[in-house]
């Protein structure tokens, strides 16, 4: 085949493929973009006029802002805790040879699938009750952190593995104590990894409904994910005006966070467990 034609064809094919992918990924988002501005929102993604009334209704709703704040507290708290604990653990696990380390990590990963499942709700509730952590946000944060930690360590360890040891050794030769090495060198270097894992953890918590709902009694402590489900009118009909607008507002912090992290650190993963 003529090389020019060939290049042209592959170009065109590439663009068509890219367009299809864009459509595939963008189509479901249409509703989120259009509905909040539609006067009488329904399941349909249509724009029958533009209005900001829905936002006004949202502003007037007493649950909205506290719930977003609670979401920030829960998700932010969990993300910070997850990142902090996982970074420490990942560093140690990456640098010290422990027999069976990878198996242990994987076993924990598997166990985490149990506590994130619905069946564990009862043991979790009873345990937190005994610990006096029911209806306290810190309890929710701890439970969520526990569930996310194994995967976070798993992912962060790959980042630490990719940091040359000479950085640490160099600092040690200059007399840095181990925690100084960690603070001055290792943590800053794996910051992109921590940011990425942090966003990941935050997203997981941000959308979590069951755990905060069950473990928090007071509605004023409930996060947005729980409140999202309360926007039904008296007849049990979803109130799309509120839901769509709230969905948009509710998504904004996560998207913003992603944008910030992406700009500052680049959103990236390391990968490749040591087979």
């Amino acid at each position: 085949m003529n090389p020019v034609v060939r290049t042209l064809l592959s170009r065109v094919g590439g663009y068509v493929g890219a367009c299809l992918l864009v459509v595939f990924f963008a189509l479901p988002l249409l509703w989120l973009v259009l509905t909040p501005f539609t006067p009488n929102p329904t399941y349909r993604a249509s724009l029958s006029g533009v209005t900001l009334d829905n936002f006004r209704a949202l502003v007037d709703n007493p649950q909205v802002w506290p719930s977003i704040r609670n979401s920030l507290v829960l998700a932010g708290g969990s993300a910070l805790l997850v990142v902090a604990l996982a970074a420490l653990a990942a560093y140690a696990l990456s640098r010290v040879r422990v027999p069976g380390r990878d198996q242990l990590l994987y076993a924990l990963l598997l166990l985490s699938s149990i506590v994130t499942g619905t069946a564990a709700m009862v043991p979790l509730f009873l345990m937190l009750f005994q610990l006096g952590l029911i209806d306290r946000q810190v309890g929710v944060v701890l439970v969520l952190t526990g569930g996310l930690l194994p995967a976070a360590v798993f992912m962060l360890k790959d980042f630490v593995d990719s940091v040359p040891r000479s950085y640490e050794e160099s600092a040690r030769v200059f007399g840095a104590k181990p925690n100084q090495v960690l603070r001055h060198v290792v943590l800053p270097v794996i910051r992109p990894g921590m940011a990425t894992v942090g966003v990941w953890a935050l997203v997981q918590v941000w959308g979590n409904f069951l755990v905060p709902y069950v473990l928090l009694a007071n509605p004023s402590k409930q996060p947005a994910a729980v409140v999202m489900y309360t926007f039904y009118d008296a007849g049990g009909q979803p109130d799309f005006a509120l839901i769509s607008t709230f969905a948009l507002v509710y998504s904004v912090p996560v998207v913003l966070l992603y944008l910030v992290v992406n700009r500052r650190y680049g959103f990236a993963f390391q990968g490749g467990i040591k087979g």
Partner: protein
Amino acid sequence: MATVELTDLVTQYPNGVRGVDGVDLAIADGEFFALLGPSGCGKTTLLRTLAGLEGATEGRVRIGERDVTALEPGERDVAMVFQDYALFPHMTVSENIAYPLRIQKVARGEREERARESADPLSLGALLERRPAQLSGGQQQRVALARAIACHPQVFLFDEPLSNLDARLRLEARTFLKQLQRRLGVTTVFVTHDQAEALAMSDRMAVMEAGRIRQVGTPREVFQRPASLFVANFIGATPMNLLEGAVRGGRIDLGGVSVPLPAGHSGLGDGERVVWGVRPEYVATAGDGVPADEVVEGEVSAVENLGVTVLVTVAVGGRDGEEGVEVRAVLPEDDEPEVGARLRLHPQTARVLLYRADDDGALVEP
């Protein structure tokens, strides 16, 4: 500044490999000492044991008056420059240089002051606010040096600091590093696998093989009288001519050619197998005045331009189906022969060294 003394040092890795396997070494105060050897011989391990990054399995390390064997790296008062420089990517040049001072809790203002002081003589003054990723290889190397200098250590440890530089830069950096060390007068241990680097820069050098030191001496001593075949093979810009043969009738028979026995070796018995060695630089074209029994003659099989000189490989002997031998000579550029031409070479008998033809390959002293 300080002396460095290693006694019976052994460093064994957890997997059982002995990276350093019984080393005794004394390095003088202010000396520029090179550790040379092929890849995997244990140079880095030795350096790291000195720095305290690896624990010594046996033996002792003394720096100055202190026995530091059991001390942490940070307590040994040494500074190390790693092969990959290990500059912290998230710190500016200035912060990198001042890092050791930060550890020593020097106040920020003074830190910056001293960073500037170390940076200036290395022409880094204008780069202080950049990050390592924005520097060229040569600049990175200088930052690593400045960082090592900034903490005024008693000993510098350099692990192949030049090997990441390109050929030209490497030459310049050599001179520069040497002058710097001279000026600072800090005892320096320098690891390299490049013999030219070791020769050019060091006051004294050690050649290592398999965790052991094979020879210690000034570059001159090591270059002129390599103590073993291994060292002989390793040292020199062009590989040394090393040909196995047997003593026969006061001469040495190299298979196809025979060369005179150097003076002082009459003690060698007839038929004894030795390795005849001479550097290509000490092989010249045979002028008319050269006695015929000191000439080896053959066909030029390769010519390499070395600049002002050429390295000529001559296939000697090998008639009657016998395997011949190759003799290399470095000749002035004007004498460059054609490949295929016949050439008469004259190895300077006074420069010839003999080695035992056994595993150790020790130098046969006259």
